[in-house]
């Protein structure tokens, strides 16, 4: 279907921050790795625009949900690594709860006869 093609990879509004937090749940990552993680973890459905990713990262850092640190990447480049703070972890938990409920509700509506 033409229309679904046009929308492929577009994020649901409001989900980006939650996805970023989730991407960092296991380990600290740099920006590129975060984008890749979301892309891979979503079976290559979701693609995060760079133009949106970085402002969002900075916003989360500013709100104290993320902390950042310069480190060395796998290919020996200087890269900025982000990691969850305690309040970031709490935020992730509550966001995840919220989305689970929301999406569950949406699915239920779709599946209903």
């Amino acid at each position, binding site marked *: 279907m033409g229309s679904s093609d046009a929308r492929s990879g577009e994020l649901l509004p409001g989900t980006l921050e939650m996805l970023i937090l989730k991407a960092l749940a296991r380990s600290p990552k*740099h920006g590129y790795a975060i984008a890749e993680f979301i892309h891979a973890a979503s079976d290559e459905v979701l693609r995060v625009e760079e133009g949106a990713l970085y*402002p969002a990262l900075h916003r989360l850092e500013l709100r104290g949900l993320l902390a950042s640190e310069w480190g060395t990447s796998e290919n020996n480049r200087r890269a900025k690594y982000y990691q969850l703070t305690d309040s970031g972890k709490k935020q992730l938990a509550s966001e995840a709860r919220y989305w689970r409920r929301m999406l569950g509700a949406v699915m239920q509506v779709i599946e209903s006869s």
Partner: protein
Amino acid sequence: MPEWLSTLRLRTRSPLRRDQLDRDLAEELEFHAAMMAEKRGLSTREVGRAFGNRTALKESCRETWTFAAVEAFFQDLRYAWRTLARGKAFAILAVLLLALGMGATTAIFGLLDAVLLKGLPVREPNRLVLFTDPAESGVSIGADYGGPRSLLSYEEFITLRSRLRSFSDMFAVDSGYRRLNAMVDGSAPEEVRFRLVSGNYFTVLGVPPLIGRAFTAADEHGPGSAPYAVLNYAYWRDRFGLSADVLNRKLQLFGTSYQIIGVMPPGFLGENVGDLVNVWLPLVMQPQVRLGQFWLTDNPAKVDRVMWLQVFGRLRDGVNLRQAQTETDVVWRQMTEASFSRFVSSQPQILKQALKLRPGEQGTSALRSQFTEPLYVLLAIAGVLLLTACANIAGLLLARAAARQKEVAMRIALGAGRLRLIRQFIAESLLVSLAAAIAGGLIAILAIRAIIGLASEPGDLISLNVHPDWRLFAFTSGVASLATLIFGLAPALMSTRANLNQVLKGTAANVAGGSASAHAGRIVVATQIAFSTVLLMAAGWFAITLRNLERLDLGYSAERLTEIRVDPLTARFSRQQLATVYDELKQRLVQIPGVRAVTFSKNGLFGGSDSQDEISVEGYTAPSGEQSSSRWDRVGPSYLSVVGIPLLAGRDIGLEDQAGARRVCVINRAFAEKFFRGRDPIGRHITDEYPDTRVTLEVVGVAGDARDRKLREKVEPMFYIPALQPLVAGGYPDAMNYQIRTFANPSSVIEAARKQIAAANPNIRVMFARTLGELLANQTLRDRLLARLALVSGALALVITCFGLYAVLSFSVARRTSEIGIRLALGARKDRIVRDIIREALFVALVGLGFGVPIALAASTLVRSRLFGLSAADPVTIAAVITVLTIAAVASALVPALRAAGIDPIRALRCE
């Protein structure tokens, strides 16, 4: 850490490490791009596309970690400063002019407020009521026949105070202040300004002294009973260096020693607005201060009253002005009936005098009647100047915005946010109005001093509690900011909406947008010309008025004439001795080298005093219901010939006109025309009907009309009687003006004259010594003030209008460079091009004049009474203003026109 706190911490940190953060962001993005290229195998170009507009991305990141709004604002201001600094002339002129407009408006309103509107700085000033005329000052001796009394006598004040129930208390003040030479603990005499006030003055006003004590009602027990002095704060500061020891010191005046008992707080200048008082003395000291006069009782045998007091009352709680007036009417009627009982039958009109109560909140002031009108006129002028300045700013901002269209388009193309650009234009406007506001505040402070200086007589600075009115200042700077904002924003919106491609390419849209702003620019300049017309018209009116007044024919020559007023009673001469004293002084003055002739007179020339009496004239019957009256003066021998008043018939007052000789007088032409109507007046009689000094005089001469009191009015009927021929036994004038005709510079004899008077008797007080030129200059003080300020405003408006016109035409030439190039290439003559530009300028000027002249004429009702010898529609003024503005328009057009003619067609076409 709570979320908001960490946010705040990071944000406040960020402005300090801006560069660091910028670098980090760049590196972070660089890394991301490198990873994309490496892992996904993308080309640089594809990476670039994936990133989109990298400037916009950085900008939005930046906004997250800074106080974006605040930081951007400062950045905008910095940028605005840089752009403004680039066009220095523009910035300086625009700011200065706006500042002048705001400063002048604020200063003049501050003065208006101080002189007209502000209440006295005393306890509950709104409960004060004035019994007398607040504009009146001086001493008036005589009888009042009808109408509200302007001043009261001491006895009248005392009686009113004891009888009236509507007032909790009443106080009285000497209506004039006295500049006298006093000594501080026996030091050299120095001029001090005294004002006599009743003992309860300070307590009724409710102002406690700063140190020591003030007078009380106890300081009022009989003449001479309270030799105490209370000082003004500024005098204490300037003369005694704020030393508390002042309370141990004494002031000596005419042999009486006054103990200094207190100092009033700063800001308290007394009940009079405008007069400077150094020292207050109790009213009961009048006989010690004005030697040889006793003004503390009324003589029931005489109809004369010495009226010299301003009287205030403080309303009792619950009593209003109307109730107080009703009670006062009754009491006053009883008082006059009793005190004038001997005269009621012969002069029933004596009972017509009344008391009119007025709100006393604003105190008294002679300035008020003199300066109300000029100050309103000045306020109007300053307001128009402010409008011109706003129009000027608008025009210049418009032109600059148009000129910067390409720059703006370029920045939008490079990713600058539209909102950010608009904010930058606003910042520029704000910076202009901010700078103007600061400069305007300074100008307001300076302008107040300058205007007070211009409005004061030399050596007698007006003393006012005046501050720039900051509320008005806030208002004017608000208006100015709004104006700059609107005109800064309109072009900003226009520019940012423009089609980028076309603007950058310099095609059609550019020309169209340019023509719109060129049109707006012309309208703005025409507005400025209209305002300038109004200001120049006003300048013309006041300059011509001043010239007319200065060139007015006085009826005698004011050149080489000096006038000195002396008060011999301070030397304790008896009244009978005065004739000898006056003659001796004349003999002494006439011997001074450089003096040609000397005469004297009681009121003199522009000396400030005046006499007027009811008269009857032989062979003249007044129309029914009308009293015949005339001004008169008492003059010394050869008065007419020394002053230079032409003798039309008969003889001058001479040496033979002494005590015991036939009573004579000389009348002026106006007198002859009014009362004799073609009959020969010589040998006929006139009778001064004043009851105390009723005399019949024979007319022995007719003099030409001479102006000796006011410049603007017609010369009134007047008669001169011999000063040395007393009206009653010993009734010589108690002060005298000497008129000294000199061979050369009249001011050169003043020093010698003072010495001669002191040699006759060192205690004779010289009340003033001025050349007639100086006395006349005081008469035209307000006219000069108006003329000067109107001329300055007009000139300023003209200069900036020329600047505005120049800017608009330059812009128009620049915009049409290619068009003019084509015309020149096609063979158009250069003078034709020049003529077109000049015609454009003249058209704008004409539109401005077309609005400006009618506006000026309509506004002229405000100033009509200030004009002298011309009408507002004076064709010379109108023609001069039109000529000046036309020449100015052509001159402003010349440079742009020549630049247009000098365009190289080939280069102009290549530019496209």
